[in-house]
């Protein structure tokens, strides 16, 4: 009984992990159909901000939940204004440019902080379930993933800003005609997506530690989740995370973590062969 509970919690953790990793990317992709290839480095930046400010004496939770999203969000807006803005409509060029940015950031952070791992210990200790010990931090991750999804959904559904965002997503030209500055909407979206990515980076920093090249370890999972999910921000992220999280966690139980990613990719490839627009390209089409 306890073992089953543990497995369920592990599954949930794997799913929330993917939700956290991918939602920032999914927000940007859902709005602009552009994949931010520097996503991993945005995560890395969030992690660095968290750990550096914690080392400087800031409370870990403030660093993680306030500073990291704020700084990465502002950084995202700067990136949008100085780079992405000029490349709208040239999707491939924006991929190339963000990839250049990603390499530049890895190089830049290595230059500044050196190529060493830094970290803090995972807060909150553990909970015992029967004979097993589960880190309480897992529940924090699951909680944050749920809150994040709920927050994005309610913003899109119930606020004026959400309405504008949905309109721009559906038909940018029409939205522009109706007096919405789509370029500002894009800027805001990129900023919010970056902030969410920064938050995710902050949350995972205590688990993995930070190193300039850490982004590489997460972009695979994030990209696969987003493209498998398709263009809907919430339904896509949730469905893809659930599917892929279950598969990768199952694979990890069976063979160890190395083949988890490969299994993810294989699933995604087969799935994309059938559903080239991702899951939400055909199922849950009308959802957010």
């Amino acid at each position, binding site marked *: 009984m306890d073992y089953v509970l543990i497995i369920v919690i592990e599954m949930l953790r794997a799913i929330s992990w993917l939700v956290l990793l991918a939602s920032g990317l999914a927000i940007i*992709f859902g709005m602009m*159909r*552009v*994949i931010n*290839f520097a996503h991993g480095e945005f995560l890395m930046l969030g992690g660095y901000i968290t750990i550096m400010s914690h080392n400087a004496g800031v409370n870990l939770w403030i660093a993680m939940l306030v500073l990291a999203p704020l700084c990465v969000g502002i950084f995202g807006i700067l990136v949008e204004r100085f*780079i992405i803005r*000029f*490349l709208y409509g*040239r*999707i*491939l*060029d924006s*991929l*190339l*440019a963000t*990839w*250049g*940015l*990603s*390499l*530049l*950031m*890895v*190089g*830049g952070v*290595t*230059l500044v902080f050196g190529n060493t791992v830094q970290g803090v210990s995972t807060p909150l200790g553990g909970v015992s379930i029967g004979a097993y010990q589960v880190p309480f931090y897992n529940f924090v991750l699951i909680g944050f993933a749920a809150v994040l999804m709920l927050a994005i959904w309610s913003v899109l559904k119930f606020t004026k800003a959400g309405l504008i965002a949905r309109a721009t997503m559906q038909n940018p030209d029409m939205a522009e005609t109706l007096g919405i500055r789509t370029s500002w909407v894009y800027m805001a979206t990129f900023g919010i997506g970056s902030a969410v990515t920064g938050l995710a980076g902050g949350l995972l920093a205590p688990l993995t530690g930070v190193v300039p090249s850490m982004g*590489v370890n997460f*972009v*695979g999972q994030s*990209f*696969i989740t*987003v*493209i498998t999910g398709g263009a809907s921000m919430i339904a896509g992220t949730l469905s893809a995370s659930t599917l892929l999280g279950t598969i990768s966690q199952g694979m990890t139980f069976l063979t160890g973590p*190395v*083949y988890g*990613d*490969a299994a993810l*990719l294989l699933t*995604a*490839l*087969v799935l*994309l*062969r*059938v559903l*080239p627009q991702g899951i939400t390209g055909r199922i849950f089409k009308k959802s957010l």
Partner: protein
Amino acid sequence: MEKTLAKDIGFWVMLGIGLAVMFIGPMVWGLFEIMQITQYVVLSVYALSLAYIWGFGGILSFGQAAFFGLGAYTFAVASINIGETTVPFALSFLLPAAFGAALGYFMFYGRLSDVYLGVVTMVVTLIFWKLINHTAGPEYSIGAARLGGFNGIPSIPILNVPGDAKAWLDPAQMFQAFMGILIIVYLCLRLIIASDFGRVSVGIRENETRASLLGYDIRRHKVIIFAIGSGIAGMSGAMWATYQTFIDPNAFSMEMSAKALVWVMAGGVGTLAGPILAVILLQWLSLKLGTMHILNNYFILGAILMGLVLLLPRGLLPSLRLLAERLWHLGRQKMDASAASRKATSDV
């Protein structure tokens, strides 16, 4: 616009330069220069693989390193097991080409969009890199060859004369052999591009819908283009492995994929000579910058990539050509104008 290969001056110039370098080079250069230039030659073949699929098939692959690395590892494992290098060299073309075809089947028959294509190719490379990094233990060996994980595979055999496993090539001969391969690859690609198949693939690049409405199977075309590019990338990987006599997982790295993209972008998408030029220029530059130890490779590579996309999206060679054409027209206009004005004054 009809321009057959035989009438293209650029083609003959490239061929002439290639042959001249191949035969005169070893007489003029010392050992160090030859080793250095051999590296450019290998990387030029690698650059050509992406130049072809991107420039003439419209397929932007962010994971050319996957095939480069696959070819390198295929060559390493096969040549250590077999004990000679001719069959492994052929395998290093065939296996990546087959893998490229399989991957291409999923991507192109699924009609994935450009963004998805970029992501999938990149993730494939990432996963190769991760997997091969995890093969450090002795249980991961294929025949006599241990994969070695992040330590890489040392003592890969040097290329030998086909049929004689003991007749290893010395650096000058290796340079000539590789130069020969580069010329053959260039020649074959030019022939493919000039053929009906190549014309259709350019047509697909320009307008997929139109090409498919004209009755061409764009999916099959793209798979074939992708497989050819993958095979060439794999072969360049094998050349790299035997040139260094060592290969490690960095063959699969982001840096390797990014380099190919940078070369093709810098040289100009849609040209073959441009990327070769870019390889020589940028590798030389990074050698010079690398000795300064101020900036690291990733930083430079990223900066160049971003700079190219934002400032010089056409690439070096086409931009130069455009500039020359503009100047030419400007000069012509000025001359016409001055001639006209002279005429006008004389009329008055």
